[in-house]
């Protein structure tokens, strides 16, 4: 080996070499810039998503209300049969008293200011307090969707009359009510305490929240014990053979089956074969449980794996049986990890929509479900129903529904993170 075999000597000092190095560093910086660009794009898109939802949704958290004095005359409402009373006339009279000058066909336009269901609201109020019959009752009634939007400046007064859903006369009336201090915009409790409605101003999430709660409850009651039992068996007891291999592969693949296929399963097996009722949170919960099961099994196994073998050996060495070792020592130590994973799995189940659509949890249901077998919606399917509704007012409701859904998800994930940080230990 001599110098003669060295074929090339690099001239690092040359301008050419320096230029080459500059080019290489530029390429390096370019790749870095692409990375920053990609991340900025992803974060930017997330920001746009959240900002649009917040911007369209926040207005649904307040509701325009109109204060109206209803005269409940004993002629129209009989004390012995209140539900049969003529509340339509009660409402009409109340509006006429506010605007005595309005007559004939225009009274219909006048009544459009209030929500279509005003007479039922009045009826329920009278049923709750029959003593008002023969007297006057002042109620705050939701304004109908167009006037709600007029008040929230989503309908521009500058548009030509034929291009907006409220005409000039109605605006004058509304402004008069406003001047009298009868218009208010309080927090929209109805969003949380009303069930669904065809009228945006009355539609709320109560039914969906209760439905989602029931479905998640069923999902938890099934997937948590079954998932832990399966994981303990596979991790601690199962012999290494064909069958357990098959189960393992199967669990991994099940985790990646499209959610809509689980919906088909629920439809064919739970509804069609076992004849369980459509739209029931019980069925929704069972389908979600099957979807969540692989997640819980996988996280539980990871948590069991992280418990050091020395703990098991110590317990077995004391003469504990394998079952005792696991229930007394291993499971309690793995519990924080299992709980964290379970909450995250349930959060995923809460956002799942497609399988619930197939088992009919997108029905139009105007009261919260009273039990597991009653027809119901869930939060994400309610969002889907509203997103599909043509009324303008539902756009804001949809965004608000999404914000509520995201709120629940954030709370669940926060609990999971808290648990992980507080309880999990490293060995």
């Amino acid at each position, binding site marked *: *080996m001599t110098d003669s075999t*060295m074929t*090339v000597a*690099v001239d690092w*000092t040359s301008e050419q070499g320096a230029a*080459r190095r500059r080019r290489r*560093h530029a390429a390096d910086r370019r790749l870095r810039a692409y990375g920053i660009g990609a991340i900025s794009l992803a974060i930017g898109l997330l920001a746009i998503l959240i900002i649009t939802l917040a911007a369209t949704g926040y207005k649904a958290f307040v509701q325009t209300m109109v204060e109206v004095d209803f005269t409940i005359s004993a002629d129209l409402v009989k004390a012995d049969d209140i539900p049969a009373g003529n509340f339509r006339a009660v409402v009409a009279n109340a509006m006429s008293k506010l605007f005595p000058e309005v007559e004939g066909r225009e009274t219909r336009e006048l009544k459009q200011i209030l929500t279509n269901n005003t007479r039922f609201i009045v009826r329920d109020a009278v049923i709750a307090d029959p003593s008002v019959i023969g007297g006057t009752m002042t109620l705050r009634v939701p304004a109908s969707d167009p006037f709600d939007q007029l008040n929230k400046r989503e309908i521009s007064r500058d548009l030509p009359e034929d291009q907006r859903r409220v005409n000039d006369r109605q605006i004058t009336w509304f402004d008069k009510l406003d001047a009298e201090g009868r218009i208010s915009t309080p927090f929209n409790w109805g969003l949380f305490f009303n069930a669904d409605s065809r009228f945006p101003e009355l539609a709320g999430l109560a039914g969906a929240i209760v439905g989602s709660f029931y479905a998640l409850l069923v999902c938890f009651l099934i997937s948590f014990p079954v998932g832990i039992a399966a994981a303990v068996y596979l991790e601690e007891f199962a012999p290494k053979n064909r069958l357990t291999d098959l189960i393992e592969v199967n669990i991994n693949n099940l985790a990646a089956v499209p959610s809509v296929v689980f919906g088909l399963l629920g439809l064919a097996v739970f509804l069609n074969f076992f004849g369980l009722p459509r739209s029931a949170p019980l069925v929704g919960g069972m389908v979600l449980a099957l979807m969540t099961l692989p997640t819980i099994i996988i996280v539980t196994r990871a948590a069991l794996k992280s418990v050091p073998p020395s703990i098991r050996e110590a317990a077995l060495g004391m003469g504990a049986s394998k079952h005792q070792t696991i229930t007394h020592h291993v499971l309690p130590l793995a519990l924080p990890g299992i709980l964290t994973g379970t909450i995250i799995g349930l959060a995923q189940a809460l956002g799942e929509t497609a399988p619930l659509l197939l088992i009919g949890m997108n029905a139009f249901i105007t009261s919260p479900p009273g039990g597991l077998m009653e027809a119901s919606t869930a939060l994400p399917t309610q969002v889907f129903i509203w997103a599909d509704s043509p009324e303008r007012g539902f756009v804001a409701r949809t965004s608000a529904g999404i914000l509520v859904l995201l709120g629940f998800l954030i709370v669940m994930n926060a609990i999971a993170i808290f648990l992980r940080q507080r309880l999990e230990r490293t060995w």
Partner: protein
Amino acid sequence: MNDTAMSALATEATNPQTVRTPDEHPTNFKIGANDVSVFYGNKQALFDVSIDIPERAVTAFIGPSGCGKSTFLRCFNRMNDTIDIARVTGRIEIDGREINESDIDVVELRARVGMVFQKPNPFPKSIFENVAYGPRIHGIASSKSELDDIVISSLERAGLASEVKDRLAEPGTGLSGGQQQRLCIARAIAVNPEVILMDEPCSALDPIATARIEELIDELRQNYTIVIVTHSMQQAARVSQRTAMFHLGYLVEEGPTDQMFTNPREKRTQDYITGRFG
């Protein structure tokens, strides 16, 4: 070897070397380190080490594991930069040029100071591509045939050419451990460095492969300045001309290898060499 290359680093160097050890014959020093300390986060791994490395000779760093010898070696090509929490202080000069200064291009520095790692780490590419990688990124070859020449001559210098000539297209990961390590040496010398750092290059190899590498190191010494970290005193005695002994992050003693092994000045060196600890 190529003086142009050296002068690039030595442009500002006027009076490069001060000879520190009075009893020594060689002396052109290639690398000079002054008060070098390395911190990993809050933990100090190396304490004020000063040493000179002679040119075209093999210098061995010995000492028990965790003594900072590898950490120190990685300062010479600034590989500690790749560890987020590592911080290096002190001066390291190669041909009189401070390498930690901001105007030093680390890419150029590492092309001149090659490195061979503890475990052979060929890229998951063909044998040819492994050796051609360096010349390609540095634009050393101007044509395909020139690149072929560089690859072949590097493989020859690494003593691997005869074994792999007919299977240059096969993956480098398919070679035996010793062959892989020689491939990594070939890969390092393909960019024509001035210094080669070797971080326990034989620790993952069997005795026969180790002997082969040691022979190779002895041959390479004619053209390159070699610094080798080793665990084994015998290896240091066999391949190196100078030896530096490290303990707990401190440089204990350094000097000509024969003197270190026959007549160490420090008791700790003697204890280590005679096997009292290690």
